[in-house]
């Protein structure tokens, strides 16, 4: 079947403009969805493992009872092919040349850290280096502040209990330092084998044994299943910590990526629909001839089905060929951002949505018009038949819309996203109906003539059907693209607002009540005023409505906050970045009540009026939940799960104070002076971590922008599809107009005006619909506040008018450069 085969060959298809548009749309859809799915998966994976490095492992087992865990627990873990490591943490006094200091010691085994890296410095002038091991036996690494506090230098000895250990390095960052507020004194890190010889640990010493585990998720989970029944009350199994680090920011980035992917799917579907309808129209003569030559309608159906399948395969392969290098690039970016290797791993499961997208857009959008080809009457070879009215396409369109929104739902897993976008679409179509009516009513009266404006208006009116459907498609395209741009803008603004350059980068903890004033004055004098100071009381949540909380909340829910002591506080006014979602904040002289952080409340199933009992030392406090509030965890300020009123029961408990503040790098020397004056206050330096987060945000932003480029490419393809749909008619009209004596300049001006009007109308409608969609999305997905985006939105209709006018000018090119005679003959 050489001739028939050639008729349906890919090479021949490629020469058809409409087929190129369908293929381009498919490739972009598959590429975008695949890239995003792959990258989102990788982001998730990296996020977890990067959070893991805050544990220096994938999991930690803590024994707070001062006893090591049975040796067979560790043997079992090794047999399950888990990596293990071990640490001992305790506080003790150490002696330098002639001074002593309370320090927090962490003694680590050779394997430490299983995840992440330490940052050390050979001496205070030396360069920083990253290492994946702790100090050797006989050596210690210390917090740089200890040099001043003890007046020693690297190379000197430090007396820990009965041992003299050599200070061989300065410890700048440890992977499990994180934001944990338990590091109350300057850190000394030593080798675990040296601990026994120091003699520091005696019966009854307050010491914590910590075991580190790393391995595959399955092995870890299997081990935990084995271990769980044997764990005592003082054992804590910890995974990635709650509410920590930048996971929220990245969650939003992921939501954004999914939104972008969904919009790409919608745009590609529109492009596929427009182009394949156009293709089907152009194929009617061929089909009629094939029928006349004896090919049955089932044969015709099969012929085009095969062709569709071929497009599908091309779209998928082409899309993946684009997606894989792009994904590789994104993993490189991520790897640079995190300053650690990120695996380039192609998950087959991440490719499913991409392939599904190709199939759905092909069969829900391209197939219906092509399927109708087999109904083209053979009689068409003798006489042109009435074309499609568009009415028969209506049921197809409904099915297609359901299919594609189903796909978006499946893909993004956000019903609110689907509802928002569908709502905006309905709004858009309503506005379009109104515009159509106005167009007909207002433009009917315009009379044609030698003026470009009139010619343009008459053109709009005469092609009102085509004009309206073009405005519809343009407006939809603009709506989707604008939605994305708006969400991106507000997302980035949000991040910028969350982590401004002067975000607090140091915490002061353990400030005694009578030192609060002096500490505040110290920093005030140095031009670095403290943020608000909060009292802090350590306590456990033990009962919920009179029931032990560990019984009420199943262990599976693993609420981290229940497993450790909580930082409780009291405060008079709600912090700026907290928001009450239920109930109300304390009135002026309230003595009762507690305000609970909203995520913890929902995990514990708390409602207003529930009674919570806290155990603080030997005391118990019971309070009723009076409000539930959201907390900005990544604000780098002290945040609390539980807040009490200023005159409540908590006020009588022994409290220390906590605060955070911003200190520029060049003023860090002030910290030494501070440590000398307030030796009991603990200082937590998180500037390194903040820098890392800012770097990650920057890189994720770049990734998002790369995706945005893909989406805008999809939008351009839609434009090309729509413009090419009317290309021939317009060229023929143009050629006729010139043949009949129309001046070139008139033709150019009226065509550009007509397209500018189309673009302008579409721009206004699209932008309005986008604002509506963003308004809905902002509340549900991105938890942000809605505001109008005039500065982004206003230029869009203008730009769309301009771009379309240029498109119009561009498609007139052949009309102007070739003699009308030749053009008419060519278009026959």
């Amino acid at each position, binding site marked *: 079947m*050489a*001739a028939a085969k*050639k008729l349906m060959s890919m090479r021949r298809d490629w020469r058809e403009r409409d087929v190129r548009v369908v293929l381009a749309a498919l490739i972009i859809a598959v590429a975008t969805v695949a890239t995003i799915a792959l990258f989102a998966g990788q982001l998730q994976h990296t996020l977890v493992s990067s959070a893991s490095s805050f544990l220096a492992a994938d999991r930690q087992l803590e024994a707070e009872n001062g006893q090591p865990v049975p040796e067979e627990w560790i043997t079992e873990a090794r047999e399950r092919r888990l990596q293990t490591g071990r640490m001992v943490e305790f506080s003790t006094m150490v002696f330098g040349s002639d001074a002593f200091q309370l320090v927090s010691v962490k003694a680590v085994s050779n394997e430490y850290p299983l995840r992440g890296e330490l940052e050390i410095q050979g001496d205070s002038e030396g360069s920083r280096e990253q290492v994946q091991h702790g100090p050797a036996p006989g050596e210690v690494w210390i917090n740089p502040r200890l040099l001043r506090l003890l007046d020693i230098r690297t190379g000197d000895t430090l007396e820990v209990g009965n041992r003299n250990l050599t200070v061989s390095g300065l410890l700048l960052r440890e992977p499990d330092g994180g934001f944990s507020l338990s590091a109350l004194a300057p850190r000394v890190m030593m080798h675990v084998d040296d601990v026994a010889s120091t003699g520091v640990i005696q019966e009854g010493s307050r010491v914590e044994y910590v075991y580190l585990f790393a391995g595959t998720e399955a092995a870890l989970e299997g081990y935990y299943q084995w271990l769980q029944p044997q764990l005592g009350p003082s054992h804590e199994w910890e995974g990635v910590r709650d509410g920590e680090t930048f996971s929220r920011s990245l969650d939003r980035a992921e939501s954004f990526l999914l939104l972008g992917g969904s919009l790409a799917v919608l745009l590609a579907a529109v492009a596929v629909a427009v182009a394949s309808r156009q293709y089907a129209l152009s194929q009617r003569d061929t089909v009629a001839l094939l029928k*006349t030559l*004896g090919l*049955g*309608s089932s044969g015709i159906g099969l012929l085009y089905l095969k062709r569709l399948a071929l497009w599908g395969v091309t779209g998928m392969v082409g899309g993946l060929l684009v997606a894989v290098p792009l994904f590789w690039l994104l993993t490189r970016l991520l790897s640079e951002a995190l300053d650690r290797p990120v695996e380039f791993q192609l998950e087959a499961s991440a490719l499913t949505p991409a392939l599904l997208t190709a199939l759905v857009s092909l069969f829900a959008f391209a197939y219906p018009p092509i399927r109708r080809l087999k109904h083209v009457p053979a*009689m068409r070879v*003798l*006489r042109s038949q009435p074309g499609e009215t568009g009415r028969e396409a209506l049921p197809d369109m409904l099915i297609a819309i359901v299919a594609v929104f189903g796909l978006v739902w499946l893909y993004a897993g956000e019903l609110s996203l689907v509802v928002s976008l569908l709502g905006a679409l309905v709004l858009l179509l309503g506005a379009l109906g109104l515009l159509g009516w106005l167009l007909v009513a207002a433009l009917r009266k315009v009379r044609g003539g030698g003026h470009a404006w009139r010619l343009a208006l008459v053109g709009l009116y005469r092609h009102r059907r085509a004009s309206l459907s073009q405005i519809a498609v343009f407006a939809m395209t603009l709506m989707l693209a604008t939605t994305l741009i708006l969400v991106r803008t507000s997302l980035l603004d949000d991040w910028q607002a969350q982590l401004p350059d002067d975000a607090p980068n140091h915490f002061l903890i353990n400030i005694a009540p009578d030192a609060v004033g002096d500490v505040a004055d110290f920093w005030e004098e140095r031009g670095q005023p403290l943020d608000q100071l909060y009292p802090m009381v350590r306590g456990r949540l033990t009962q919920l409505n009179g029931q032990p909380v560990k019984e009420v909340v199943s262990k599976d829910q693993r609420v981290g906050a229940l497993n450790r002591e909580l930082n409780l506080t009291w405060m008079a006014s709600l912090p700026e970045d907290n928001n009450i979602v239920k109930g109300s904040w304390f009135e002026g002289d309230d003595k009762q009540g507690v305000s609970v952080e909203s995520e913890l409340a929902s995990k514990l199933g708390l409602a207003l009026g529930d009674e919570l009992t806290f155990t603080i030392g030997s005391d118990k406090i019971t309070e009723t939940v009076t409000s539930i509030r959201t907390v900005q965890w990544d604000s780098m300020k002290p945040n609390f799960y539980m807040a009490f009123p200023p005159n409540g029961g908590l006020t009588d408990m022994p409290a220390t104070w906590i605060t955070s503040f911003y200190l520029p790098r060049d003023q860090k020397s002030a910290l030494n002076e501070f440590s000398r004056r307030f030796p009991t206050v603990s200082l937590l330096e998180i500037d390194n971590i903040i820098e890392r987060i800012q770097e990650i945000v920057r890189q994720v932003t770049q990734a998002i922008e790369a995706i945005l480029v893909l989406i805008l490419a999809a939008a351009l393809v839609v434009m090309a599809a729509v413009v090419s749909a009317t290309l021939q008619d317009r060229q023929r009209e143009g050629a006729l107009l010139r043949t009949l004596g129309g001046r070139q300049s008139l033709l150019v001006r009226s065509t550009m005006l007509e397209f500018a009007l189309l673009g302008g109308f579409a721009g206004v409608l699209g932008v309005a619909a986008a604002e509506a969609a963003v308004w809905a999305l902002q509340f549900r997905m991105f938890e942000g506040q809605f505001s109008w985006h005039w500065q982004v939105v206003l230029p869009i209709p203008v730009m769309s008018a301009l771009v379309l006018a240029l498109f119009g000018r561009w498609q007139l090119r052949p009309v102007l450069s070739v003699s009308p005679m030749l053009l008419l003959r060519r278009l026959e």
Partner: protein
Amino acid sequence: MPTTNPDSQRLMLRVENLSHRVSLETNTLTILKGVSLEINRGESVAIVGRSGSGKTTLLGLLAGLDTPTEGTVELDGSIISRLSEDERAKLRAHRVGFVFQSFQLLPALTALENVMLPLELAGMDAPEKRARELLERVGLGERLTHTPRQLSGGEQQRVAIARAFASDPAILFADEPTGNLDNRTGQEVSDLLMDLNKEQGTTLVMVTHDEHLAARCARQFHIEAGELTEPVAEAELAD
């Protein structure tokens, strides 16, 4: 189901009381009214009439490209209105050839491939060999690999004639075959058509404005406002 008629040995085409109406938005338009005629095997027949008289519609109905509102068309022993669309397509593939005013060649295919296409669709053996022979017969042996765009109107119509005869049809329908050609080229094309028709013993049914061409056919049917008006045809039918 195809129905066998005792006259089918002699008759190629039998039309009885054929009417065709088209529904418009406001009224119904009658295009053909009570047309009856018979055409024997090997005969050549011209259908002549003014523009809009219904001759192209009649040709479409005779060839089974469309089905009539009323009446029957029996083509080569099969009653067309009783066949499904696919059966009609099969009938056309094996028994019917077409030549059109606007040539209707597929622009993406070469001359050779255009001629091969119906042979392939009918599942015939050695399509390329047969297509080459025919193109040589119509004088285009040197232009096999040219696409329609590279051929003049006359050459395109000759390719179309080669295609029409390719599957060895029992009957050939031609719709204004010289309508788009100048006089001289038209003359050459009609010579070719008549010659091939004679050589192959094909039945020829032609719609034409061209009086010279019509005169070369054995019989002529005149059609006016959807009705056959030529008494000669009636007289011959009575034979």
